[in-house]
């Protein structure tokens, strides 16, 4: 149960149950749909991008606690950041979720996103945590849809 408690921390359960920025805006400049056909999770990420900065971000969709919480925390974290910064964060986040040997110091900048590092112990759940981020990157790149398998 220990690694489960680690996975399902309070913060995650909270974001899973009460996702922030869970809304369809009407002034989005970019949007993308993310699918995880393994479990049927589907998220749409909406962005308002202005001169390379994400001014606003929100999402809707359905999925497991991990993917919803990850999406919710992502929206809080990236708002106001530049595209370049976001790509760097994506890489760090991805590394945190998949790299067992990662050094704690190197992901400090992810701040409270670190609570999601528990997925490392659950290879099949990594996709749940990263789906919103893949969708975000697709939206930034102007793609309409992304599927993770």
């Amino acid at each position, binding site marked *: 149960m220990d690694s*489960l408690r680690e*996975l*399902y921390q309070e913060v995650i359960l909270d974001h899973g149950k009460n996702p922030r920025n869970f809304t369809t805006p009407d002034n989005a400049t970019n949007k993308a749909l993310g699918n995880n056909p393994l*479990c*049927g999770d589907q998220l749409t990420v909406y962005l308002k991008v202005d001169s390379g900065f994400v001014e606003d971000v929100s999402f809707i969709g359905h999925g497991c*606690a*991990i993917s919803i919480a990850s999406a919710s925390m992502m929206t809080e974290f990236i708002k106001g950041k530049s595209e370049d910064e976001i790509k760097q964060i994506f890489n760090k986040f991805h590394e945190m979720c998949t790299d067992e040997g990662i050094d704690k110091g190197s992901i400090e900048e992810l701040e409270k996103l670190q609570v999601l590092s528990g997925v490392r112990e*659950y290879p099949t759940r990594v996709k*749940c945590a990263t789906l919103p981020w893949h969708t975000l990157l697709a939206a930034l790149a102007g793609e309409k849809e992304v599927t993770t398998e």
Partner: protein
Amino acid sequence: MMSLRTDKDEKYTFNVDNVRKDFPIFKESMNGQPLVFLDTAASAQKPNQVIDSITEIYKTEYANVHRGLYKISETLTAKYEGVREIISDYINAEHTSEIIFTRNATESINLVARSFGKSFLKENDEIILSELEHHANIVPWQMLREEIGVIIKIAPINDEGEFIIDEFEKLLCNRTKLVAISHMSNVLGSILPVKEITRLSQAVGAKVLIDGCQAITHLPVDVQKIGCDFYVFSGHKLYGPSGVGVLYAREELLEMMPPFMGGGDMISAVTFEESTWAKIPHKFEAGTPAIVQVIGLGVAIEYLKSLGLEDIRKYEKTILDYATQKLLDIEGLRLIGTAEDKASVLSFTLDFAHPHDVATIIDGAGVAVRAGHHCAQPLMNRMNVAATVRASLGLYNTEEDIDRLVSSLHNVSEIFN
């Protein structure tokens, strides 16, 4: 654990404790807990009888089959071909040549779609499927539609997950050329009235394919009684090895149908100008078959027969009933699939946790279930869920397994509530 008590005057010898001893995997643990395996609908565990027969063949009897003019090849060929008899007996086929070995049920259906469908159906002919089909019984027909322009119609089910025979009847017409329907749903457990479906379909001149992947494990199957033209299933769900499936088809159809794949063993003579086909069943088995797996499947069936098929069914029913009752006691649990006539599969959702999260958490308690769409996305849409948790039963499951499932679901509730 338990063994089942019944009226003394009924001969009932099924003893699950003994049966479990035949399945070595139950000595294993998962995540530090004794394994509770509730995913038989995806693939069943194997008894020692099957495993040992495989080992034995590879260690002492292995050779390629057919065309071998030495002892071990002749002996193994006889065993391999003998499995056609075991299977035709098990499903009551009329001839052993009506049993074709494939990799899995999926290949069996693709074989029918390509060989029968492509040759005998034409544009605007209609195929009827049901709302609860597995992707294996949807996608091959869509590929056929893509190729020759047949029309696919969908027979509906009700909210309990029961096939609505009246609605089905309305879809039948003289353009209906094929009806392809599950005998038992892999998500809902519903058992479909395949005999009635077959009768109605054949009355308008349609051929009938029954996907028996789930049914074969839990129900008596008599293809002549059903009257169907094709019946398919996979060995790995029937306590047999991975890598082997079966297509039953009526002799008369097999004779008419062109081969599916070309190669060795399925020909009578080859020149560069022309090849002629072997007789059935070999016309449909190109190349070196899954020799050892076929024989292992035969052993699995013999094993089941030795336990007593009727007794297995009765026992499984008691566990299904027990599980149904225990699950319904859990607050916030919704059972998906409540057909009057059902077997061995329990799909559900919890209103406080996503199926994916449920599976991960109870895996931590050693309980193996499946979560997701179970290769039946259209059915998920019909039932208005994105995914379910599915606990499916085999002949080795016990009330204790169900208790462990239930208590692990309480863990989920603790975490989420």
